[in-house]
């Protein structure tokens, strides 16, 4: 049996299959809109993982399927296969190469994580206080001494339970580093806006922090990502990323929405995730 030839053919097949697999992943697993500076960096790593997934998938799948076809038993042949016990060189190869890959991803992961969680105060960063409770969110701006203005729930889906309606929106200025200091008064919750990519639990008895910089004006949805009981699914709120000017009107001066500039009207802003796909 000519293994070398088969190996060359199969390996050659891995290349196009990897390309196709990556293409399929890229279109089926399109990431949500990039709404924060962090999303841009994280997505680079996501794509690198996708490339690796596509490659490893193709490698195993092609070699496997190729082997099954070429080495299937032919009609009337009831002998055994070749007596091959293993190959130490190969074993070392497929231990060391993944090890190198893994170390690479490890170093990259450490660096990126340190960047994402860098706690050093940045110029013009904004501190926002987030309180989670079953099943709603509350926001305030301790440095400004104001609460987030109440609003009609334009984007959160209608539900019949009055306790459930989160009528407070989180309003954030675009392009300013945001620091959320988060507390929970009952059980665990978790802050996740998919367009921002980052997530952090809220833990009773402890303050947790989440840092990100929103980069696109628009309406986003925040959902609680840690099971918190009955109406966990509906523990949502709207996040409005607005221009600095609108932030000044709506939050700092607490103007009613109707009196704010036209560009600050929420309907004037794009909705995510609708426009994401």
């Amino acid at each position, binding site marked *: *049996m000519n*293994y070398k030839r088969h190996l060359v053919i199969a390996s050659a097949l891995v290349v196009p299959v990897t390309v196709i697999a990556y293409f399929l992943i890229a279109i*089926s697993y399109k990431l*949500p809109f990039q709404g924060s500076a962090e999303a841009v*960096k994280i997505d680079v*790593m*996501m794509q690198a*993982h996708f490339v690796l*997934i596509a490659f*490893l*998938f193709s490698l*195993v799948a092609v*070699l*496997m399927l190729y*082997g*099954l076809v070429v*080495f*299937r038993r032919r009609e009337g042949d009831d002998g*055994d*296969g070749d*007596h*091959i*016990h*293993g190959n130490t060189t*190969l*074993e070392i190869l497929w*231990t060391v190469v*993944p090890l190198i890959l*893994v170390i690479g991803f*490890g170093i*990259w*992961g*450490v660096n*990126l*994580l340190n960047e994402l*969680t860098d706690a050093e105060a940045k110029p013009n960063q904004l501190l926002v206080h987030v309180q989670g409770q079953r099943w709603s969110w509350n926001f305030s701006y301790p440095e400004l001494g104001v609460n987030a203005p109440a609003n009609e729930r334009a984007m959160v*889906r209608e539900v019949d339970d009055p306790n459930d309606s989160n009528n407070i929106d989180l309003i954030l200025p675009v392009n300013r580093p945001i620091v959320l200091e988060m507390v929970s008064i*009952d*059980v*665990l919750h978790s802050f*996740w806006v998919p367009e921002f*990519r980052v*997530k*952090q639990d809220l833990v*009773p*008895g*402890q303050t*947790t922090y989440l840092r990100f910089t929103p980069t696109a004006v628009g309406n986003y*949805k925040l*959902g*609680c*990502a*840690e*099971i918190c*009981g009955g109406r*966990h*699914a509906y523990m949502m709120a709207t996040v409005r990323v607005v221009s600095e000017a609108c932030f000044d009107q709506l939050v700092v001066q607490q103007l009613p929405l109707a009196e704010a500039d036209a560009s600050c009207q929420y309907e004037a802003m794009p909705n995510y*995730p609708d426009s*994401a*796909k």
Partner: protein
Amino acid sequence: MRQLRILFSLGIVWALIGQAAGAAAGLFLVRAIRAAANLPPSAEAELVIAAMFSVFGSLLFSGVLTDWLKWCVGIETPLRHGDPDGLPAWTRYFSVDYNHKVIGIQYGVTSIIVLLVGGILAIIFRLELSWPGEQFLTPESYNTIFSAHGIIMIASILLGVGAMVNYLVPMMIGASDMAFPRLNAFSYWIAIPSAILIMAGMVIGDGWETGWVGYPPLSTIDGSPLGTQLFILGFYFNGFSSIAGAINLLVTVMIMRAKGMSLWRMPIFVWAAIATSLIQFTATQTVGAAQLMVTTQRVLKLGFFDPTFSNGLGWPAGDPILYQHLFWFYSHPVVYVFVLPGLGIISELLPVYSRKPLFGYKWVALSSLGIALVGFLVWAHHMFTSGMADVLRIPFMLATLLVAIPTGVKFFSWVGTIWGGKVTFETPMLFVLGAISVFLIGGLTGPILGTIPTDLHLHDSYWVVGHFHATMFGGFVFPFFAAIYYWYPKITGHMYNERLGKIHFWLMTPGFWLMSLGQMQVGIWGMRRRIYDYDPALGIEFTHALITLSALIIGWSVLIMIYNLITSSRTERVAAINPWGSRSPEWQVPSPLPEFNYYRPFEVVGEPYDYGVPGSVYVRDVPAAGD
């Protein structure tokens, strides 16, 4: 009359009666004590004591403790074996029996029944999720059902692992039974009341809503449903089954191997069983501790996990994150308990159907141990967003990524086994190949969860749901089914129906691919985990409909298997001694095996997987002294 006598000879009937009687006794005891002490009734305390008593009652009445109790008072009891006197032979499968093969079947059948229960729950909440909006469940019942689905499936997997390990290992190593047959029966009979407690948690006291992880404060907060407590105790008692079973297995492998069976000549599945048992034996205690701590917090108001706790004596307040550490210290390693035996089955069957030695036997064997070892060092990768101490994040990220390496070794060894072989595609082999394809999906979607920056997006999303369903189906369900089809002729002496087996495979495998790839898609698009309803704006309605459809297909295909297994045992298709041409000892003798496995002991004289060497054998009968 005779029917009634038979019915009341069955251990399972007595186990149920005992469980009810124990529960009643516990309930009565708490009521009486509290009344005597002039305390108001406490549903929580009643429930806990009743549940604990119900387990003892079940064990006592089933008869699994009888021998041990007699020993306590100095009565010697011989090890009862063989068919029961004066009763039909099938009754031994429903009563306490000490034979490892009977116990293996008991585990296996129970596992499939529990799998069906968990599957029905899954279908129910999948129907709810088919479309956005509220369909026919309330959010509370949805939470109960998905939580129960999770833990019931885990119970099913542990039972299935028990089935494979118990049935196969003594047979493969040439032992007549497990080292401690009574302990073996105990491991099985305590799993029954535990499973019943968990299921009772769904219907008694408003169910529960914490998911299978049971994180406090949700599991301990005032007003959390009573069902939570039953789930926690069921989980707790099930741990005894794991620990006892694991000790038994380790001792059996250590001291009862056939002559000449050195470690490097054991069937590869035995290596997997060792790795699995090491994990079960050492990790289960911490989750047991965690569940007891939750129980004491609920009942006695000890504040282990309660940040507002203060008893006026200056004790420190509790910490909810402590629970997560204790929980995952067990629950990460246990995912390898789920999959290592299955991966062992894959490695065991591939050489048989490829007619070629297992590629890199020692590497495969050591990779199981490697996975088990590294598996102990990665638990906090489930907690990257939990708010745990910052210094922990990076070491756990690096350790997690290391798991990919021994996992990779297995895949490449499987490919190496096939290359150069002469492969055939009977149903067990199809399921092995399906297992590889599905486990590949599961394994490849793990590292992206292991690097923290990407996990910050994916954690607690449906991506994780897709990832772990793929690992557990690929690592347990598919190989378990492969094992069932493969050893079916050995167990029953009959051949299963090949056509139905293939139909099962061709429905279930594409169905599963669709399901898990769909789950990952909605997850990366932003769908949270454990939600009862989702936002149509995410654009995931179509995928959800597909997921539900594939869940239904998978469900039906499993029913086809069960039909096949039941009907085939009644037909005339009596299996050949060695239908697969395997070298393994159990296939060298007629099926089914006798009570003590081999009429004559065998000795190992060759390598287990030396296919392709003319005239070589793995085992031969030990020559008797006079021969």
